[in-house]
């Protein structure tokens, strides 16, 4: 899964920190600021380089398309097949989006607004599908019920995999929304449903729509699950074409990228903050231990079913095939270890690069509104719309055309991970940078600390959690990444995902299972860390208000 809904924390940064650079025109800087101007110039330069690197895939795609020539593009795109793929992609996206929105909003409502026992456990379980790659979910269903194919199967698998993308931002929005508003609606004589539709829903609308955009972006860039379930979309077609006719693959990427950009455009048009009154952050009320009431039983059953389907089913199936294969062919432990090691190191490198490059960009975007800042914001934003397969293809194109030495090396794969997941790293780092306001650095300096000391004693402690969270998030998504990995992995090297893929393609479900299980475990660890970080975020926010 490549998209995690973290747009919500972007709006979670203290209001003060968000507004200052935008609303308040900074005083003209005089000579005594030159020192910082110099710093800022370095940041601008670094950011510009990073922005160019991020634009690389799109530029290469354009070059590729130009090389292929209009005739080729025309031939590939304007045929019945393309229409068929477009319809397939759109129908599936729409179905999954609607279902994920319903499930996400309903479960967020249950955990945030109802007297649900063991609320935190439910929250954790409901988010867990993020750590299970969709191709593993597809494998789980298909290996148990081989007749599960086509649209309905794809809808089921993708819905179960993507509803957390709606759940997370909506739960955050509900937590942020002042519950007093809903109390007031009750006191004005309105029941639960009217209150939900007329008060709560307008408040979480942006979060719901933002989550939906992420769901669609995920669906249109998914490859593995659809290949298993035999459902063709643009991405599966691009992948197939890539093996025979790379230029056709390039041509097919154009409408896919346009679709992604369209979704991004929709996302960009959403109001980032709903019109907020001067009402400050929601007052936190003490929650006593929740007493069991029979009225929540249907809710618990429904959420339980969702968790069983979304988490229990894939993990159970992996376990089942593991048990089955005990006396047949378990893969050699050495292959498993080496694949694990490869996955770990690739993902860690990709995550480290993404986080380090995100830092200057994050510092940049919280400065005053200048042309470079705006351009940079847009560029980093655009990357989110480019599916992994397109980034991979463009890097293959780059290597084969301009840097053959890089072709089939791990460098290319790590770079692909970094570019692909850069937006995720940026979101986390931005949150931290926003909290570490320049005023704190000034205070540090005024207390007699040297710039280095300020960096170590003020900046680093404030930034570290965000950097770590960004690392975890990118690491998690890189471990579960399949599409770009299949395209770029050097010959002879196996990662967990590619090995899993190879075995399951040969219907060696038992042999594939351990790889799937290790992927889930590796992804669940940073997932848990992230959960902790989010909780911490909530605490700091409370103390800031």
């Amino acid at each position: 899964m490549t998209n995690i809904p973290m747009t919500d924390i972007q709006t979670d940064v203290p209001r003060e920190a968000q507004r200052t650079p935008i609303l308040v025109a900074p005083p003209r800087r005089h000579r005594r600021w030159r020192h910082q101007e110099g710093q800022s110039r370095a940041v601008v330069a670094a950011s510009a380089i990073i922005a160019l690197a991020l634009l690389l895939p799109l530029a290469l795609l354009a070059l590729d398309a130009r090389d292929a020539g209009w005739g080729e593009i025309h031939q590939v795109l304007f045929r019945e097949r393309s229409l068929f793929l477009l319809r397939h992609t759109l129908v599936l996206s729409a179905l999954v989006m609607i279902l994920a929105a319903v499930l996400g909003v309903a479960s967020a409502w249950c955990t945030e607004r109802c007297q649900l026992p063991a609320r935190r456990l439910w929250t954790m379980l409901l988010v867990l599908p993020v750590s299970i790659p969709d191709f593993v979910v597809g494998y789980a269903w298909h290996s148990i019920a081989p007749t599960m194919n086509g649209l309905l199967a794809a809808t089921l698998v993708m819905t179960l995999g993507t509803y957390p993308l709606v759940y997370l931002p909506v739960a955050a929005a509900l937590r942020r929304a002042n519950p007093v508003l809903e109390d007031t609606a009750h006191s004005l004589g309105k029941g639960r449903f009217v209150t939900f539709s007329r008060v709560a829903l307008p408040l979480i609308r942006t979060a719901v729509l933002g989550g939906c955009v992420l769901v669609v972006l995920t669906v249109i860039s998914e490859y593995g699950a659809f290949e298993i379930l035999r459902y063709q979309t643009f991405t599966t077609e691009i992948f197939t074409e890539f093996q025979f006719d790379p230029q056709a693959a390039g041509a097919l990427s154009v409408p896919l990228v346009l679709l992604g950009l369209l979704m991004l455009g929709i996302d960009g048009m959403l109001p980032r903050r709903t019109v907020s009154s001067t009402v400050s952050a929601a007052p936190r009320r003490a929650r006593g231990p929740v007493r069991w009431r029979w009225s929540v039983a249907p809710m618990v059953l429904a959420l339980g079913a969702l968790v069983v389907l979304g988490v229990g089913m894939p993990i159970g199936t992996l376990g089942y095939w593991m048990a089955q294969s005990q006396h047949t062919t378990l893969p050699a432990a050495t292959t498993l270890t080496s694949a694990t090691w490869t996955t770990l190191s690739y993902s860690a490198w990709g995550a480290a690069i993404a986080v380090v490059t995100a830092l200057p960009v994050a510092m940049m975007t919280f400065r005053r509104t200048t042309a470079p800042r705006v351009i940079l914001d847009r560029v980093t934003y655009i990357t989110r719309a480019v599916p992994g397969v397109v980034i991979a293809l463009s890097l293959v194109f780059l290597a084969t055309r301009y840097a053959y030495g890089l072709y089939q090396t791990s460098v290319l794969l790590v770079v692909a991970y970094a570019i692909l997941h850069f937006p995720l790293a940026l979101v986390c780092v931005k949150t931290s940078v926003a909290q570490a306001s320049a005023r704190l650095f000034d205070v540090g300096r005024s207390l007699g600390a040297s710039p280095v000391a300020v960096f170590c004693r003020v900046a680093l402690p404030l930034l570290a959690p965000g950097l770590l969270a960004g690392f975890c998030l990118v690491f998690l998504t890189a471990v579960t990444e399949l599409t770009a990995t299949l395209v770029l992995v050097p010959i002879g090297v196996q990662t967990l995902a590619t090995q899993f893929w190879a075995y399951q393609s040969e219907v060696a479900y038992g042999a594939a299972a351990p790889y799937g299980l290790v992927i889930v475990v590796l992804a669940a660890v940073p997932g848990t860390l992230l959960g902790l970080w989010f909780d911490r975020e909530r605490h700091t926010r409370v103390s800031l208000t």
Partner: protein
Amino acid sequence: MSAIELRQVAKGFGATPVLTDVDLAVPDGSMTAVLGASGSGKTTLLRLIAGFEHVDAGTVVIGGQLVDDGCRAIRPQHRGVGYVPQEGALFPHLTVSGNIGFGVPRREQHTVAQLVDLVGLHGLEQRFPHQLSGGQQQRVALARALAIHPKVVLLDEPFSSLDASLRDSVRRDVTRILAETNTTTILVTHDQDEALALADQIAVLRDGNVVAAGDPRTLYRDPPDITAATFIGEANILTAHVQGDQARCALGTVVLHTNGSQTNGAAALPGPSRLLLRPEQLVLHLQARANTVSATVVDSQYHGHDTLVRVALDDPHCHLLLARVSGDLALTPEQPVWVEVRGSGRAWPIRME
């Protein structure tokens, strides 16, 4: 008749008790202020009356109807209680009219215009909350609560978020509107000046209990005990010896008043007592006179209309006393003054503490 009656109400969250044994009766058409420090359970009390929380024990009666007895509770939407939360909490996605008309049935929507006029927001009907000033938001929140013709209106610290300059006028507006509509009101506040100025009845909430209740004048002049005395207004507490209707203390002999509402005879009980004198009962003179005690100025806080002066008596105990003097009187620390007591005091025997 009481519009609201709470009897032996108890409420806790988890293991922490918030309200232990609250009795409160709010007369029809009056404004009752619940005065308490932050964390004393004021907001919880309001939320229990509104029905957002349910009592653990005790009963809540609104307009003669039992709404919560610890077992069964009527839902908030069926209680007819207007709730004005802290800082207004307007629906950010609705206009002024939309907010005020939220609880009004469709066929009665024309009444919204009257309410807009009532709170003096004519012409702002189509504004959104973020386009309003704090005072305007507060008035919209009030109109929204009044729109459902509530049996009672609950105000949760309605003025605390307003600027000092705005607070007075909004307070005046709100009390006028509530008086015009003859609405029973409970106002929760931590501001004793506000409670004294606005309420017909004050209930002092402390550690989950109503420790004192009564009309503002009585509570200030004739509080039931020392705790209540120190909670409402500034207080000087001196040890004294009561004999008859007089008390001897470090300031000389002070007459006690016994005509208060609480005629428990405490003032007349002879023996060692504690004596309450309000700061405005102490008069400072720059020269020695009859019936004065010499003291030294410690420091003073200038408020414009008056000055609060701390003085230390020149006796072996160095009693620290607070005096309210005219703002024109300029006093410097270390300056010698002479203290005179005006009016009568209130005393409680020490063993009753």
